[in-house]
């Protein structure tokens, strides 16, 4: 008796309900032969069937949803209550361990030798209760489905406004779907904020924001030497901004100049070819760029550096920044292209009329006119660069050096999040929680950049519309 089976039964029941409802509506209308008393239906017969089917389906779906959300908690609590009294008054962390063991046992993940007998009993009880609960759920579901379906079926009258009912239900469904986006944002904010608050309870906020040393290695035991862990985010942030800065230094001139060339100079055929090719750069997965940076660009830079007698780290910020710059060229160019095209032709004509050359028109008239939009596109590209993960994970370093030298190894916020969270750790150690604090910082920074960029672009659009 699994959820899948329940859903299948529900589907069958509701399609039966659909046919029954439709048949009754037809019979009532007298179109279907049957009675001679003809009465005009308010809606098409299908809507009556649909209404009956929906009434069958929706209450049951709601019950399944609620059940799968909270069955685990209820069953665990019930099982824990039956444990021996010595186990009842445990402190929270030990209790959590016990619960984890129990869940592992229930799922059958534990090797058979290290099972304590009372835990095995508890697991058996859990499984037994789960079985009973499943049966119960099945019984409840079928009763509810049949009952609500029958109610809807009985209420079918020719004058009933079935279409309006169905449409209202569909509309509520649409509203429900549109809240997912809001729920996602709330989920992001809450999950990141919640874990970050737990982190800041252990590490003061000022240490995190202004500390100059980042080494998140925590001692496993209290007497272990040398690794108390320090969580100063400044070097990490500095690395992030340096790599993003290099990326922008590559992407902004190239992106802007190609946007200008494509929109002002190039003929239609060149534009039709060059634009999609440049868009490909944005569609390539970032992991590919990361591999390219680590395999081709970084060794190239290192060799070039050693030719010049410079000591270049093989995980230099320069390599990551250059490749990231390649990646964000299309973000700059396509948005700038749009805003340059939006500048009214009259401005150009006026400038030509005064005797300016094309390049003078572009640099003195068009770019100042399009500046807000261009700034917006650069800000969007910057937020993309700051949040970019795979290139820096594969090509930048892990050690947080506070340096302005792009040839040395630096680390970024995203690299630290990945290294702190990949692998199995205790979830409540500052080391893991630090990743969420960094995530919060990343979210806030990119959000601010995006809001400003969208605001600037929108204001600019209004100006010329």
């Amino acid at each position, binding site marked *: 008796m699994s959820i899948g089976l329940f859903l299948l039964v529900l589907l069958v029941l509701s399609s039966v309900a659909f046919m029954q409802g439709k048949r009754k509506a037809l019979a009532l209308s007298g179109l279907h032969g049957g009675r001679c008393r003809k009465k005009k239906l308010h809606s098409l017969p299908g809507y009556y069937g649909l209404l009956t089917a929906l009434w069958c389906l929706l209450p049951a779906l709601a019950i399944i949803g609620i059940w799968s959300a909270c069955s*685990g908690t209820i069953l665990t609590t019930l099982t824990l209550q039956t444990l021996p009294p010595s186990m009842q008054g445990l402190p929270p962390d030990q209790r959590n361990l016990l619960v984890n063991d129990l*869940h592992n046992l229930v799922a059958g993940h534990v090797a058979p030798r290290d099972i304590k007998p009372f835990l095995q009993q508890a697991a058996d009880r859990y499984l037994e209760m789960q079985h009973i609960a499943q049966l119960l759920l099945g019984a409840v579901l079928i009763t509810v489905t049949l009952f609500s379906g029958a109610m809807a079926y009985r209420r079918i009258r020719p004058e009933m406004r079935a*279409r309006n009912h169905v449409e209202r239900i569909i*509309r509520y*469904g*649409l509203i429900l*779907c*549109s809240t*997912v*986006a*809001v729920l*996602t*944002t709330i*989920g*992001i904010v809450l999950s*990141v904020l*919640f*874990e970050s608050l737990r982190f800041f309870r252990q590490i003061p906020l000022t240490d995190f924001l202004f500390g100059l040393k980042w080494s998140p290695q925590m001692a496993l035991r209290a007497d272990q030497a040398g690794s108390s862990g320090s969580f100063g985010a400044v070097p990490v942030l500095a690395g992030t901004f340096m790599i993003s800065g290099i990326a922008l230094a590559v992407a902004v*001139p*190239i992106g*802007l*100049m*190609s946007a*200008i*060339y494509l929109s002002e*100079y190039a003929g239609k055929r060149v534009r039709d070819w*060059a634009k999609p*090719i*440049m868009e490909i*750069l944005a569609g390539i*997965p*970032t*992991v*590919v760029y*990361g*591999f*390219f940076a680590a*395999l081709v660009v970084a060794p190239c830079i290192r060799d070039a550096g050693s030719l010049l007698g410079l000591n270049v780290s093989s995980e230099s910020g320069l390599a990551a920044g250059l490749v990231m710059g390649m990646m964000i*060229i299309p973000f700059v160019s396509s948005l700038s292209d749009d805003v340059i095209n939006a500048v009214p032709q009259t401005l150009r004509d006026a400038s030509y009329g005064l005797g300016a*050359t*094309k*390049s*003078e028109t572009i*640099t003195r008239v068009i770019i100042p006119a399009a500046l807000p939009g261009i700034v917006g596109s650069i800000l969007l590209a910057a*937020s993309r660069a*700051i*949040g970019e*993960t*795979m290139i820096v*994970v594969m090509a930048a370093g892990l050690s947080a050096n506070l340096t302005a030298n792009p040839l040395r190894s630096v680390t970024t916020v995203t690299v630290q*999040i990945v290294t702190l*969270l*990949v692998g199995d750790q205790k*979830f409540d150690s500052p080391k893991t929680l630090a990743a*969420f604090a960094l*995530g919060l910082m990343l*979210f806030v920074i*990119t959000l601010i950049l*995006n809001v400003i960029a*969208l605001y600037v672009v929108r204001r600019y659009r209004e100006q010329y519309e």
Partner: protein
Amino acid sequence: MKGEKRASTRERINSGLAKRYRRERRFRMFGLGAVLMSICFLGLLFGSIIGNGWSAFEQAEVKLPIHFDSAMFDVDNLAAADYGGLVKHSLQILFPEVKGRRDKRRLYKLVSSGAPFVLQDIVVHNTGLIGTTREIWLPADDEVDMLLKGHIRRDVPESERRLTNQQIGWIDYLVNWGRLEEKFNTTFFIAGDSREPELAGIHGAVAGSFFTLVVTLALSFPIGVATAVYLEEFAPRNRWTDSIEVNINNLAAVPSIVFGLLGLAVFLNLFNLPRSSSLVGGLVLTLMTLPTIIIASRASLKSVPPSIREAALGVGASRMQTILHHVLPLAMPGMMTGTIIGMAQALGETAPLLMIGMVAFIADVPHGFTDPATVLPVQIYLWADAPERAFVERTSAAIMVLLAFLIGMNAFAVFLRRKFERRW
């Protein structure tokens, strides 16, 4: 006085004109240079990937005369037989002059450590072989493969090479004998991940990507379309719908790794969904691709002219009927194009999936939504970290497969747009 001044103005203009024209030409050259530079970047990227990767579609195999001694096999328990011994025995037959434990161990190293499993597979599928002697092609070790492809250089001192002079001698002998050849690398397409490059394949990752994308598509398409329909056709202009709009625009620009943090905190820690599974991966990617799909769907709905709606309303259709029967079918091609582009993004996404544990080493091919799985980009990331030289070309080859999928999906989107695009 006056005439002089006018002449000097014209002179000033004329004298500056050449310079200004030069500047104009230079500016134009910069523009062209920028476009060419980005195209060069793209060419360099593709060139290096293909140049590194094409050789991974071939793999060295060695032909060994295997004697399936019937004394060694127990028909009821074929897995118990010593397949490694069979390989070693046949190598001893080929090289009877090799004596001494160290030399022998070096000789055995030429054949992949996975060769016994290949033999086991052959025997299990064809028990009739037992008692006969057959010439069988087995995968060679990745170092042998690298030597044949020229990635291990012969001219460096022996101590800096992964293969000794003696081993290279054996390899040349086998090649001249026709017993060692580069063959098409089917393993790469049908095997799961492995620590041994010659046994590693992308099948597991492709299957994981498939299951993940199925979850993503099944959730994000209906939810995205429904949201777009609501916002575009029904929503009243008020603060609530405005906040939804702002949310969607911001979500489109949130770094993908933050979605991974959400998945870790909510789906794994709060809901206790199975770690590393394609189900959770699909859920996270759904949240990520939703903004793309919603924005594309809204644009598509907007492009359906009001006359269609008015005509339907005019003959007595309700609002809902108008939208479901007339507007939505007309807007569907645009919505599908947006969805395919969103799916292509989701297929290439790596960072959020690292957060929810899809980065684990998984050798088995997943068979369902809750099996531990990995996806193609994560597989690329894992292989890029592997130290063996042979993994470099496999990484590039996996990238080529991924790019092929992406190009295919985007081409399909362009095809849909071309075929169903309608000018009103």
